């Protein structure tokens, strides 16, 4: 049994939370998974809470998932997308958020293109902050739901071998996943072209491999990341076609491995680049379980944070 309270007031990154926090979030998510599979999928826990979803960057899954989690907990929700707001008129982050808070908001779920935006905000405003992705820094709820999905599929995370394949350099999912899986006792390897692996990634205690087949033969779980073309300001590899040939996962590779591995993808998928359609839709893929678990994990995080009284 994990502790009964989170050690933190905000969820800014996996780096700041303890193993106990992660276990508490998982145990609570188990309960919420039961809730969202009932006929009536709603509980009244957060009915006195207002949550603002502030997205300075595009998102489909994370935004919908957070919004659904908030509504399933009966919170009041307001949504804000930077593209259709006064941010384009030159308003600063603190001004934007303070204006939203003046409307009496208790929690802020924020995605921002710059690393550290969540930490910065938590120091200047009173509301509780949940980081929904800040630049190439962290995406804690994604890491939690990935680890939770592995735990659900394999029974436990401790001792499992997980390889993260693809664009590690631009990926907040990779960083958060590495930290989260290591806290839970898994072994982590990163795999990708040299240009997309940060130079000092080894200092996080992960293995580095440039050969996809070797990496896949080593692991129990392969997390295939998206190639983030929108963040790549220079050419990191000659062409998408070449990347797909070297690092793309197809059914033939999967079937020729010595063992059956689990395939994950945080979405959105570039079908035919990181993984082919037949892999994405195969029995070994738990991509849609990840999405379902995302709602339960986010409900658990919001519920546990809300229970921390000021």
């Amino acid at each position, binding site marked *: 049994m994990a502790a009964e309270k989170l050690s933190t007031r905000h969820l800014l990154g996996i780096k700041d939370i303890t193993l106990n926090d992660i276990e508490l979030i998982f145990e609570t998510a188990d*309960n919420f998974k039961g809730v969202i599979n009932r006929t009536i999928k709603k509980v*009244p826990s957060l009915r006195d809470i207002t949550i603002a979803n502030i997205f300075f960057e595009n998102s489909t899954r994370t935004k919908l998932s957070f919004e659904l989690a908030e509504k399933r907990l009966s919170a009041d929700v307001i949504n804000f997308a930077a593209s259709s707001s006064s941010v384009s008129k030159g308003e600063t982050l603190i001004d934007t958020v303070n204006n939203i808070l003046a409307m009496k908001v208790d929690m802020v779920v924020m995605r921002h293109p710059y690393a550290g935006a969540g930490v910065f905000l938590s120091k200047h405003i009173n509301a509780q902050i949940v980081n929904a992705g800040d630049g190439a820094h962290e995406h804690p709820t994604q890491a939690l739901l990935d680890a939770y999905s592995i735990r659900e599929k394999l029974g436990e995370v401790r001792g499992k071998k997980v390889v993260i394949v693809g664009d590690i350099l631009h990926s907040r999912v990779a960083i958060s996943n590495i930290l989260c899986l290591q806290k839970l006792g898994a072994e982590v390897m990163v795999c990708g072209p040299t240009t997309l692996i940060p130079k000092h990634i080894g200092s996080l205690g992960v293995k580095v491999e440039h050969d996809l087949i070797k990496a896949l033969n080593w692991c129990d779980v392969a997390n295939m990341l998206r190639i983030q073309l929108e963040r790549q300001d220079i050419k990191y590899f000659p062409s998408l076609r070449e990347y797909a040939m070297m690092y793309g996962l197809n059914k033939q590779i999967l079937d020729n491995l010595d063992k059956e591995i689990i395939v994950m993808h945080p979405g959105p998928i570039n079908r035919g680049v990181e993984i082919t359609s037949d892999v994405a839709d195969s029995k070994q893929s738990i991509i849609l379980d990840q999405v379902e678990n995302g709602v339960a994990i986010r409900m658990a995080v919001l*519920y546990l944070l809300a*229970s921390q009284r000021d």
Partner: protein
Amino acid sequence: MQKRTLLDGKKFQITIKRLCHQLIENHNDFSNTVLIGIQPRGSYFADRIKQELSEILKNKTIRKGNLDITFFRDDFRRKDGIVSANSNTIDFIIEGCNVVLIDDVLWTGRTIRAALDALLAFGRPAKVELLVLIDRRFSRHVPIEPDYIGHQVDSLDSQMVKVSWKETEGEDKVILLSDRNK
């Protein structure tokens, strides 16, 4: 700390047997009635009631589930402490059934209020009844009264009723604890 025993030994057994016979009077063979224990402590009591009913009726198919009310409580964010939930195990349909809610101690009635809310998430029962082992009279915060009562006690807010079970604590016993300084 002063202790007074409210129920133990033979009297405890007789009370459980009496409650079961009262249930049988109203629910016959339990074909359309389910037992729901409120987590965590009410589920031990519900297990005992089910076991006793099965012996009396020679019927092993009485349905029993556990209901967790954590997310439906009205003191969330108003009280320090418990936020972690227990599991719900209701693997049958309660729509149209008679439900007997079971808890060990009825005090303010707030738990039962939350349980009624939580129960509705599983469907619309035909009728809901309440069975409690100990009824702390005259201390209700909401208008809720039990249908079946093991034992009634008049108590102060500063006192505490503690129920122990053979399966978990090694002994069937109910005691009333009072702090002499209060």
